[in-house]
């Protein structure tokens, strides 16, 4: 703070230049982010309270919310557990292929969700490699919850790993070694030392995963078959509502999702700050 104060005294022209940037940034954020939200809110209010009641009462909407919730919770659980495991291996072990593994973890960030969905169809859809195995056992993957969960998890793999690895690398292994010499078992060491150390990074990764799972549509659209009241998530419902000219209820569902995202965003900011403090200790 004192630094910016001295620079502003010394070079007023720099401050003017900077305030212009601030203006542009605010306009950019306002136009691109706030205006759409305002538009959605306006449409919902304009439709009257009847829209909210009718939308919430519709069984397909309720099911869509439930499905999105189930997928989000399960994706968070799976990516948190396996993400921490992968992060611990990447941060602490040195083995041939480690860098390759690290790069592969980032793959979902680079691949379009639609392609992820297509890959799942190729593997589990009709004529896919694994299709005979599951069909023989009467398990449906494609056009059902398993494939929707699978693609969501795939897309969310990097978040927890990418947030936890730097924290683990930063703190090193000395605390873990200290715990072991003090008589802690590997399990005790994990729950008493490692987990509390990475908690904010982990929560940050979880929040990112949850936000992504709530909003995911591309991959889910391909694998779900969008069967109303069955494999239709909240985002897919919005998609259909717009096509069927049910704008108001579509916007209302969108508003609920946006509200959830804002809550997560706040959490993300909080966790990010705590994580930075944790690393600087």
């Amino acid at each position, binding site marked *: 703070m004192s630094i910016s104060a001295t620079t502003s005294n010394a070079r007023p022209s720099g401050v003017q230049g900077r305030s212009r940037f601030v203006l542009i940034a605010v306009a950019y954020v306002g136009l691109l982010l706030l205006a759409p939200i305002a538009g959605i809110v306006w449409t919902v209010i304009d439709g009257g309270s009847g829209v909210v009641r009718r939308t919430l009462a519709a069984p397909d909407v309720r099911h869509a919310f439930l499905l999105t919730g189930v997928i989000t919770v399960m994706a968070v659980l799976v990516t948190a557990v396996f993400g921490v495991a992968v992060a611990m291996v990447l941060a602490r072990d040195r083995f041939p292929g480690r860098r390759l593994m690290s790069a592969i973890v980032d793959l979902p960030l680079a691949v379009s969700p639609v392609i992820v969905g297509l890959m799942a169809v190729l593997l589990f859809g009709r004529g896919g490699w694994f299709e005979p195995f599951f069909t023989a056992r009467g398990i449906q993957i494609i056009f059902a919850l398993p494939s929707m969960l699978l693609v969501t998890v795939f897309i969310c793999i990097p978040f927890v790993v990418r947030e936890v690895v730097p924290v683990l690398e930063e*703190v090193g292994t*000395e*605390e873990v*070694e*200290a*715990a*072991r*010499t*003090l*008589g*802690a*078992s590997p399990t*005790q060491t994990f729950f*008493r*030392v490692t987990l*509390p*150390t990475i908690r904010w990074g982990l929560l940050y990764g979880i929040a990112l995963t949850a936000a992504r799972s709530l909003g995911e549509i591309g991959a889910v659209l391909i694998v779900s078959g969008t069967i109303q009241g069955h494999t239709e998530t909240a985002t897919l419902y919005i998609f259909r509502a717009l096509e069927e000219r049910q704008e108001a209820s579509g916007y209302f569902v969108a508003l609920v999702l946006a509200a959830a995202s804002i809550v997560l965003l706040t959490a993300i900011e909080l966790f990010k700050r705590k994580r930075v403090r*944790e690393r600087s*200790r």
Partner: protein
Amino acid sequence: MTQGIVVEDLDKHFGSFQAVKEVSFKAEGGKITALLGPSGSGKSTVLRMIAGLERPDAGSIWVDGEEQTSKSPQERRLGFVFQHYALFRHMTVHQNVAFGLAVRKAPKSEQRGRVGELLDLVGLGPFSDRYPDQLSGGQRQRVALARALAPRPKVLLLDEPFGALDARVRQELRRWLDDLHRELGVTSLLVTHDQEEALELAGEVVVMRQGGVEQIGSPEEIYNKPSTPFVAAFVGASNVLRGTIWEGHVHFGRSAVAGAHGFDDGLEAQAYVRPHDVRITRQAGDMSFEVMVERRTNLGWMSKLVLRLQDGQMLVAELPNEEVEGIRADSRVFADLRNAKVFTVGGAEFASGEELAKV
């Protein structure tokens, strides 16, 4: 049952690099033993193998007569103090010290008692609710020591415990550790690259070099009777003078120094002479030879003289100021070297401690 730590023929490779080679020594029960060596000499690796943090490729480790080699660190229950403290950053001082008791499911009341006792011992009683990042380096290391001692370990392993602290705190903690050890008498193994620390604290010193043991002995033996040129050079400052052996002396130019008994005449040799073993006189004596003063630096109570021998070799002398009054640069004086340690050049052959003792 042998009390203390016994290490036999330890070997350890990291990839193709051999970090530890056939290391054997004993650390006597109830005493402080130092593992002294430069960085990369394998001393920390030896300590980590004793703690179970590294697995030796070969060899065995015994503590108080019990074999430890294949046990996990958890089963060994040895106290370990890390150079960078390794305190649990999300726990208070109290929780840190209690950790070793808590994971063994000790009753809460017992934990509280023991933690209080230890925090008093290390003088940090009022700090029990602080977090590690609210403490100074010296305080953190005292917490780390209390934490290591809390479960009453059979031995205490210290890995460069004062290495990350500044010189003054290091001095203070060294004295404090000495007192603490006198009080508790726990078998301790101290890894350090600081020869002063090793000589001051340890009853026995194991000097390591390039993964192997170079010499084992009391601080006096290590300092006064180094068995290899490396020990002579590493433990305490030394001048190195090159010359040829003739009738029990190392000759260089028209000067000579005693200390080469038992060597064959004509061998190339190096004489190691400590700066405080150089005496300066105005008149020529029996054994002294003429030198030229190149530079004199006053260090308060003593002076450092840089001397040039007649054959061009340089020699550093440290003397109390009253012994070198009136001597300054360009003075011609006579030097007399004592307690020289002689090693022949090139071959593995060198004077053993016993041979030097006869001189």
